[in-house]
């Protein structure tokens, strides 16, 4: 319960950072998705119920604060959490490269999923959105993947320090 509450506060903190700090980075166009990293970390380290609820809630909050009215992130973040749970314990995620690749591929997958959903759900055609995938989402996913080992390490350290419990699946 204490851990779930801490995770919730952490999630809100990450969301606030994403809405305030990452847009002020020098390259505004390409900013890392730190909330996605947190959801994937939960997918690898928390229980399916509490982590699932937290991921759903964080996705919902993202939808609430964005110009999206379809609930895309509520869906995608919950789905990504479930997928991460499937891979939990089956992937070797102890090296920096594997952590990077894991997050990078998941970020790309989410970008593709949202692109498909946006095209399918919008009544009017949204123009050439697919070109954005290579010019924008590929570098952004790369950047998200790049900072993920650092965030995983930090999250692991904090979890260890506060709960004397090792983040499952990811070791320092």
């Amino acid at each position, binding site marked *: 319960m204490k851990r779930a509450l801490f995770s919730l506060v952490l999630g809100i903190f990450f969301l606030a950072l994403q*809405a*305030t700090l990452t847009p002020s980075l020098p390259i505004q*166009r390409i900013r890392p998705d730190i909330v996605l990293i947190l959801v994937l970390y939960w997918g690898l380290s928390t229980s399916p119920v509490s982590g699932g609820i937290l991921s759903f809630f964080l996705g919902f909050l993202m939808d609430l*604060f*964005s*110009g*999206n*009215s379809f609930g895309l992130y509520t869906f995608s973040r919950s789905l990504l959490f479930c997928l991460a749970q499937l891979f939990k314990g089956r992937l070797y995620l102890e090296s920096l490269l594997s952590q990077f690749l894991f997050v990078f591929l998941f970020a790309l997958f989410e970008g593709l999923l949202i692109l498909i959903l946006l095209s399918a759900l919008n009544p009017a055609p949204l123009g050439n959105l697919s070109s954005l995938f290579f010019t*924008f989402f590929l570098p952004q996913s790369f950047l998200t993947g790049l900072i993920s080992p650092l965030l995983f390490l930090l999250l692991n350290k904090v979890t260890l320090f506060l709960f004397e419990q090792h983040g499952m699946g990811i070791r320092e």
Partner: protein
Amino acid sequence: MSLRVKQRKGVDFFDALLMELISPFQKASTFVVKTVHGVFQNYIILVHLQKENVMLKQKMAELQQENFQLKEMAYANERLRRLLAFREKISSSVIAAEVIGQDPSSWFKSVTLNKGERNGVRKGMAVISPEGVVGQILKTSPYHSTVLLITDYNSAIDALVQRTRAKAIVEGKGENRCQLKYLLRSDDVIVGDMVVTSGLGGNFPKGVTVGEIRRVDKKEYGIFQYAELVPSVDLTKLEEVLVIAESSLPKREDKGKKMKRSPRAVAPKKK
């Protein structure tokens, strides 16, 4: 004594010997004393200097901080003065709001404001800044609201080209770009033309700047031509905005949902 001075023969040798023997000690002693004295003196001076240095550094940091705050206040003052001047110029009642957050996702373009329903903000209201159109209110809560920026894919505003009065719809294209849709091929539009709101949508007052046309693509076939424009407002650096609280808007919403409206929050127009 005078005898010894006069007869110095035997004494000189001993004197010299003693002097030679003692002098190195004296020299060493002087060196040690001088060194100790010097070190002690330097240490005291250094301690004093260090204290002074720390104090000066603190003072400098304080002054820098003060300077930074003053600069920030001056910039805010300048922005707010322009906002106030603009607010007095436009013929609608407006609500001044501060941008407190950007869109956390990358697909969509929106900002969060620190004013909500309790301040008179309603869904669909127009949001502008002294430079031009910002967007429309998409979601509201009692004390906060979300603005859909004009660069978002879901945004559409009725507009016209200022020079030729050609009508079109400004749609968001993401990444600080918009496009003009349904612009007739026969319409005279060139790069550099300014696009303003038509006032037909009911939300935006007529004549508010939307942006400048940067690219025109007139194909040899088809009914419409394509034009791309850059918003006049730098939407990545938004800090303060004005929400236009038109009297017609709440009436339209009241049909579906009754909302309390604070008369204090909606500033009356100044003439």
